[in-house]
């Protein structure tokens, strides 16, 4: 199947698939950020049980394969009377996986600040909340820009898990499998989707770099 013919038949589907991928990515990433912050707060709080829960959470979702988690969401949870539709399963899986890495990014952002600055802030008479607001959070956020850019790309790639469940409309990876079960689409079917991902990643990386350049903290 040539490109022209393929595009005529499936062009619209590709655009919808690209938008679906973007949409899954955007929704997931918002929750990834919220959850990352929550988990990070738990991991740095002085209350031991919460710390342990946060650490265990990160270890679980950093190390579980996405497919394994998706399968649990799709097939196992209904037995436990937790019913999520396919789309929600994909998003939940992506969020859980992404937030573990997001929290790691924030943790290393906090680590770059160093004990000395905290002590200096304390010596000036800043209270704990002031230190968090004025010293810790701004620096952690600013040094997390690049890692979070990478995380956004990783989240986008993770939404390809959507190809493992019948989504309608399918996202970019799922569409390749859908088309090729209908016709012999050939290598072009693959490259259009691949280009959709690669160019999106390029754009995200470009924006992330530009932001990082502006907010990066000299050390």
């Amino acid at each position: 199947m040539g490109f022209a013919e393929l595009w005529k038949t499936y062009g619209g589907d590709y655009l919808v698939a690209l938008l679906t991928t973007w949409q899954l990515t955007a929704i997931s990433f918002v929750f990834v950020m919220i959850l990352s912050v929550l988990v990070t707060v738990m991991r740095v709080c002085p209350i031991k049980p919460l710390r342990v829960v946060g650490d265990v959470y990160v270890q679980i979702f950093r190390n579980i394969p996405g497919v394994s988690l998706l399968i649990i969401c799709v097939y196992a949870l209904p037995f436990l009377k937790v019913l999520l539709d396919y789309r929600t399963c994909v998003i939940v899986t992506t969020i859980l996986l992404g937030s573990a890495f997001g929290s790691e990014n924030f943790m290393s952002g906090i680590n770059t600040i160093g004990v000395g600055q905290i002590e200096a802030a304390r010596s000036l008479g800043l209270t704990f909340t002031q230190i968090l607001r004025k010293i810790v959070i701004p620096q952690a956020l600013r040094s997390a820009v690049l890692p979070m850019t990478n995380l956004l790309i990783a989240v986008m790639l993770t939404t390809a898990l959507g190809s493992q469940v019948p989504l309608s409309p399918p996202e970019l990876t799922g569409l390749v499998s859908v088309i090729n079960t209908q016709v012999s689409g050939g290598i072009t079917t693959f490259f259009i989707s691949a280009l959709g991902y690669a160019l999106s990643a390029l754009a995200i990386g470009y924006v992330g770099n530009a932001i990082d350049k502006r907010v990066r903290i000299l050390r």
Partner: protein
Amino acid sequence: MSDATTSMRDALYEAPGPKTRRRIRFWTFVSLLLVAWGVWAIIRRFYVTGQLSPKYWLFFTRWTTWRFLLQGLMGTIEVAVTSGIIALVLGLLLMLGRISSNRVLSAVCHVVINFFRGVPSLLLIYFFFLVIPQYGIKMSSFWMIALPVALAASGVLAEVFRAGMNAVPRGQTEAALSLGMSPMHVKLKIVFPQALRMVIPSLVSQLVVVVKDTTVAYVVSFPDMLQNARVLITNYDALVSTYFVIAIIYILINYGINQLSVYLARRSGTRIVARTSENPM
């Protein structure tokens, strides 16, 4: 958890005074109750839906079950190791191309590296599973999973290698060049051996990504651990327990690999280059 993490998260708080200590003790108690309640709620959910019934769990006490899973695990390991080796070689070649003084080669390698990094491994698997056969190329299911996983990893590995090369002090290159060595000779004989030593922990940690990617083997019906688990499920009609046990095994394996890489990094005093810690493009 690295030492730095522990010290910094403690440094956020100062040594508590008596009032703060009381407050922490109170909230520790409350949070313990919450955690206990959460664990209890999950167990209860298993119980009320009948998932704690012995028939779902007892077959895990049988050796045959584990032998079958271990066979699957061997499949997983075979794929992971093969992919890992291919990715290592390919990543190395891509990196060498990327840093070569030949502009065209460097640009091509740059594009290839970013292509493999910017495309989901699942898409690569569909390429080998659905697209390649259309061109009359017959491949065993083993290679249909091993090759895409390797390609996906090679892009990241190339960048890991490059980070290692960049971390070798520039002065050494200058010193070697001033001795009259050729630039490629310097890169291979002086810089690369040191870079390799530095990136070993990072390479090990990338193995986690490879192991995770192998779980898609069921798409091409290759008998890895997850695929064998699906067979178990049909045999024993025990879906929930099996999928949870499998997930835990994967988590433990990957946790082990991660700990190993942290240990290696600490021993050699190097940093782990993760996908998330470098410049994206």
